[in-house]
């Protein structure tokens, strides 16, 4: 026997960073919101390093995504101060630049090509010699050949960010139901709510799917309404610096063609990542994955082997067909998406919250988000 709970304006499936920010921003606009997730912020949001690097991670063919990323990065300072004010919590936000370094001549060639591409799109980076890199970051190996400084990129601690968002959702009266959504309820060709694993239904004027790589697994989805989102596994290590061995810079590196990053936190934690593996929903941590990360990190920072090893996880990035997020209304009335953010979920958190709050209240996506309508794939 199923029981009905009184319906909110919006039900959001998935309380990772994207579902949480959508709930908070929608709540601020006066909408009543229910989040459905058995384990809030337990998956990619828990594993992610939290780099805010639209410039450092620029990729050919992803120019529209750069614009969205820059908009979100520039929105971050105000977004964070509002969130920290409302909740009294901190997020570990830093906007003091990202250092990107090359290990050998081929890697330096890759960075030079990246810099030309960045310049052609009008974004600012600074080319550095190996010596200049080491002056900025004395822990770097002498073999580092050169690098790029993206002075406006930054980082945030996703675990603190999601904890603050969860508190902020509470402040705007958002409700969290710790259950798994199993089925989308569709009546007269309109989404009207979701059914939960315990048989309950949550009915709402609008359903937002923010369940990352699980978004396509929801029952009851009419065919073709939600574009394919695939899981892309990433293994991430957490280390802890004892006194004296403090990494100053959020550092990305290219080591013999493969990428590695190290994100330091104020409390001494260093997040080291990440592999990128297309292995379905597998979240096994493998010896080979960790070895590759440690091998490459050690090439850049020989002192890394002295650090305390504290944690290792594998998360699943939600990959849309073009690696860009899908934001806003779908072809099915009453159903909206905030999914498929791939490597950029943390970076795109503010802009996603704003875009979804706007489309949930006015029905129209803001201009910056328009290229990311889910209907671009139909």
């Amino acid at each position, binding site marked *: 026997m199923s029981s009905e709970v009184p319906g909110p304006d919006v039900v959001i499936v998935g309380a990772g960073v994207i579902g949480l920010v959508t709930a908070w921003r929608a709540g601020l606009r006066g909408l009543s919101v229910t989040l459905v997730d058995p384990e809030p912020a337990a998956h990619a949001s828990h594993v992610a390093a939290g780099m805010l690097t639209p410039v450092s991670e620029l990729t050919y063919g992803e120019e529209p995504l750069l614009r969205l990323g820059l908009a979100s990065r520039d929105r971050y300072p105000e977004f964070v101060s509002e969130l920290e004010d409302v909740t009294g919590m901190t997020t570990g936000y830093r906007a003091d630049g990202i250092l990107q370094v090359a290990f050998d001549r081929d890697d330096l060639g890759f960075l030079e090509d990246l810099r030309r591409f960045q310049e052609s799109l009008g974004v600012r980076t600074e080319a550095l010699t190996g010596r200049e890199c080491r002056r900025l970051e004395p822990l770097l190996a002498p073999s580092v050949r050169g690098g790029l400084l993206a002075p406006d990129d930054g980082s945030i601690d996703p675990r603190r960010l999601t904890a603050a968002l969860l508190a902020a959702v509470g402040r705007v009266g958002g409700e969290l139901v710790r259950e798994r959504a199993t089925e989308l309820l569709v009546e007269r060709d309109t989404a009207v709510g979701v059914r939960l694993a315990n048989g309950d239904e949550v009915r709402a004027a609008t359903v937002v799917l923010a369940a990352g790589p699980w978004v396509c697994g929801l029952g009851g989805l009419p065919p073709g309404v939600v574009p*394919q989102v695939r899981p892309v596994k990433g293994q991430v290590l957490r280390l802890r610096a004892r006194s004296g061995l403090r990494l100053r810079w959020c550092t990305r590196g290219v080591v013999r063609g493969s990428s590695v990053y190290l994100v330091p936190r104020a409390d001494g934690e260093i997040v080291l990542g990440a592999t990128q593996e297309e292995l379905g929903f597998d979240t096994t941590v493998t010896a080979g994955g960790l070895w590759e990360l440690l091998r490459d990190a050690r090439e850049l920072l020989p002192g890394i082997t002295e650090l305390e090893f504290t944690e290792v996880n594998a998360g699943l990035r939600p990959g849309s067909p073009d690696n860009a997020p899908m934001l806003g209304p779908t072809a099915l009335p009453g159903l909206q998406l905030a999914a498929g953010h791939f490597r950029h979920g943390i970076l795109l958190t503010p802009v996603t919250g704003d875009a979804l709050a706007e489309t949930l209240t006015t029905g129209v996506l803001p201009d910056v988000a328009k290229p990311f309508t889910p209907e671009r794939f139909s």
Partner: protein
Amino acid sequence: MDDVLSIAGETFGSRLIMGTGGAPSMRALEEALTASGTELTTVAMRRVDPSAQGSLLDVLRTCGIKVLPNTAGCFTAGEAVLTAKLAREALQTNWVKLEVIADERTLLPDPIELLDAAEQLVDAGFTVLPYTSDDPVLARRLEQVGCAAVMPLGSPIGSGLGIRNPHNIELIVEQATVPVVLDAGIGTASDAALAMELGCDAVLLATAVTRAQSPALMAAAMRHAVEAGRLARLAGRIPKRRYAQASSPWEGISG
């Protein structure tokens, strides 16, 4: 013109075999594969989940492209044989691109492990397409143990250095009675055209397309280059001369 590529009794209209590593997104890969006109594409079995939705194999199914599983990431004959067997089970195909790598820095084939694995897989009923160095002796030995094609490298995987030893490729082509596929090292269209002019039956490439600024555009370029190189080979090039020879005759021109 009915000029098809025939490997182990299967025919292909396209002589461009694609790899998939390094593609920026699934959509970019799909566009590139479509633009390349390829009918055969190789996939690293250690790096995909055959059942995953929206994955690489899904993309290949959508495009109607035959999947050629490969053993990338294997360092010994034993690993490669096991990976091939798992691929056969998962994908229901006897075909395998056999790759046994000696070290990560160069990704060059380990010739001894390669020959060993090729022999075992042929005996186990596989259609084996080995990725090999550009050594004519090794190519002959691989053919002798029953490989369905030989796939010599132009230069190291992903290097884009083109064909460093065209003479060896010619020697391999000259002696081979199975198709020769130039595999690895292609950087741009002229490299692919050269491979075909040297007499290769097909070209296999990935990075040159997947890491190009516009993968779909480069895929189209490769398609044309392979076709152009093939036509030039069939047409027969003129001998190279030391001095000029006017293209219009002098004789018979009255003063």
